[in-house]
């Protein structure tokens, strides 16, 4: 029925053993976690500096007042959307090959969405007044909508990670005897007394289904609302009615790339060749081509329509991109980070794990810089000229603290994903077994 899952030679005991063995705190993972923690602390020192001296430690100024923090926020929200596409859209359509990947996609979703919320705080001039948003929040402001949907998305994604994991948590509780005491206790509490009877499975499946349906509009909302932070303004380059779908389609490109990278490293480090197969990479590569094509289509619309109309401010913005000030970055991102990679993936050898992972890294980097291209150039072309200002206010280059604080967000994502993958099996064990039994029949 399905060549992706060719585990007829595996027994249930073997599956348990293979997939539970990554749940430990072995030497290698300790080194990796310490490395992440130390890097994070170094980066956080720069955030301390920013708290002391104000946002003046960044390269931001009155004309580019949103820089790489906001670009990075958009990127993180975008990447987190993949959880919805893989576990929900494909899951509800009964696409069975994604089942072993669903948990990795949810890990990516939860980690990126959580950290996106933190990135917004690093961009605030007065983070000490964060509570004002709840005390004085106004429904007219897209920021308030954004906070509402991001928080909801994090909550539902966490549940979507947790609830289908109940049988596996129970398995950890029953089988893992040499883990620390607190961890055993944690499994016991989190398993909610799971015993694996039919009634429990029925309840779990019902809840999961509700969440899978709920997550679709919410995921669409988070990125649409994020695009509205720009589209709701009167600035040329942002003032675009297709920004919502344009952002959502771009989100799937970044997300697919992130999942492929995560798949690769989990497969290598946890020795999961039998579970994350070459065929999985091949199919993820095809999915990536599909979403990249949709994104290219939106890019063409976003460029050609305003670019055709000469003399408007929007056209000026497009011309800046195509052959003006921003053209080098624009073509690097569009060709190098999107078009050439997806053309390469059309060839089967490029969908092998290693080349696909490398191409995905290029795509992910392109996706990041694409967000900078969306956020920054518009602000450098205001309706009224930039005059009587310091020389450097006519351009924007991020400073070391700004880059370090941005790096901290990536480190935090890796940290969250690593810790979760060390506490729980990254492949849904019970679903693999179910599939196996199903195929045997």
């Amino acid at each position, binding site marked *: 029925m399905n060549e992706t899952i060719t585990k007829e030679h595996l027994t249930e005991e073997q599956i348990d053993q293979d997939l539970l063995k990554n749940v430990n705190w072995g030497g290698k993972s300790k080194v990796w976690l310490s490395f992440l923690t130390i890097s994070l602390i170094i980066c956080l020192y720069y955030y301390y500096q920013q708290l002391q*001296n*104000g*946002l*003046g430690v960044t390269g*931001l*100024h*009155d*004309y580019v*007042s*949103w820089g790489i923090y906001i670009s990075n926020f958009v990127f993180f929200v975008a990447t987190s959307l993949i959880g919805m596409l893989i576990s929900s859209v494909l899951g509800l359509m009964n696409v069975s090959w994604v089942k072993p990947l669903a948990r990795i996609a949810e890990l990516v979703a939860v980690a990126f969405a959580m950290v996106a919320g933190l990135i917004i705080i690093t*961009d*605030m*001039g*007065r*983070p000490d*007044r*964060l509570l*004002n*948003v709840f*005390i*004085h*929040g*106004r429904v*007219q*402001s*897209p*920021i*308030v909508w954004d*906070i509402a949907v991001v928080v909801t998305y994090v909550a539902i994604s966490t549940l979507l990670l947790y609830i289908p994991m109940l049988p596996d948590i129970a398995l950890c509780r029953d089988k893992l005897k040499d883990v620390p005491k607190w961890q055993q206790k944690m499994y016991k509490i989190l398993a909610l007394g799971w015993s694996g009877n039919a009634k429990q499975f029925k309840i779990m499946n019902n809840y999961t289904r509700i969440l899978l349906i709920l997550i679709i509009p919410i995921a669409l909302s988070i990125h649409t609302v994020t695009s509205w*932070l*720009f589209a*709701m*303004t*009167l*600035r040329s380059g942002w003032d675009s009615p297709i920004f919502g779908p344009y952002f959502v389609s771009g989100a799937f490109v970044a997300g697919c790339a992130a999942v492929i990278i995560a798949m690769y490293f989990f497969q290598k480090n946890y020795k999961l060749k039998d579970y994350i197969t070459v065929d999985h990479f091949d199919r993820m590569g095809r999915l990536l081509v599909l979403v990249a094509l949709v994104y290219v289509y939106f890019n063409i619309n976003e460029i050609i329509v305003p670019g055709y109309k000469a003399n408007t401010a929007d056209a000026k913005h497009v011309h800046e991109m195509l052959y003006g000030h921003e053209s080098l970055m624009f073509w690097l991102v569009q060709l190098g980070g999107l078009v050439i990679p997806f053309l390469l993936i059309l060839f089967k050898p490029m969908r092998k794990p290693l080349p696909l992972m490398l191409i995905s890294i290029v795509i992910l980097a392109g996706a990041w810089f694409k967000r900078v291209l969306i956020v920054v150039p518009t*602000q450098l072309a*205001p*309706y*009224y*000229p*930039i*005059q*009587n*200002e*310091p020389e450097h*206010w006519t351009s924007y280059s991020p400073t070391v603290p700004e880059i370090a604080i941005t790096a901290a967000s990536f480190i935090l994502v890796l940290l969250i994903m690593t810790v979760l993958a060390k506490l729980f099996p990254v492949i849904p064990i019970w679903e693999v077994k179910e599939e196996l039994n199903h195929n045997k029949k």
Partner: protein
Amino acid sequence: MANKNDKSRRKFLQSLGLAGASAVAGSALLLQGCSESNTASGNKVKVLTADNKLVEVDVAHLKPGDKIQDLKYLQKRGREGIPGKKFVMVVDLAKCKNARKCMKACQSAHQLKPEMHHLNVLEMEDPVRDTSYWMPKTCQHCDNPPCVSVCPVDATFKRQDGIVLIDNERCIGCRFCVAACPYSARTFNWTEPKNSEKFAEVTYDMELNVPQKKGTVTKCAFSADQVREGKLPYCVSACPNGVYYFGDQNEDLVTNGTTKKTVRLSQLLDDNAAYTLMPELGTKPSVYYLPPRESEE
């Protein structure tokens, strides 16, 4: 300090046995430093207290001109604005010679660093005549302000008298208003503001937006503090060239800051083919521009 004042005021009022209950705004004479002195002159005046009560007190007990120091009162007054007014500005571009006295007066009143502008005099290209002209650009105090719509915490708001202000006690520094303003009228305190130590003890008055605070947005306030006292804005009275008119649209009168001549607003706008900046955006500015033309002199 505010509490002490409150108490002494209450005691004083009780001893006089006067307490009206009517909500009238207006007078800038405030029952601030009134003393416990018993010598009365016999001349009574009506004044408005911080809790909006109209009371009659002896003039000997008043120290006129003392700025009130109660933050709560200043915040309330700043948000409400002046009833019955609709402030407008008219900028005569034909008269501007880039003297920049307006910018200087503005920056010194609002404690701004040299790169921060509530008011910026720009050199604009005139593509038709292939010349350039000087254009002072302030906040346009739009009647449909995009900055106010996007503010997540109601830190920036539009008052009944048309002035758009910012409360830097509430601003979270997200800079959405900066991004949303098509006129680039707003500026941000990226670092510790100028003279922040000197002004540390001063009570914040949002009508002047001083003291400035690190991590908050600041903007042109149409000199709401001056306007409250019936004076012209700092920039308007500093101009040596008669560029600025300021006044009340409801009265249909504006006063030139240099000549102090008061003229009919509607006639000034009609006679000179006045326009607003980027009317197509639908922001409905309160600042009108009279087009640059060959100098009349």
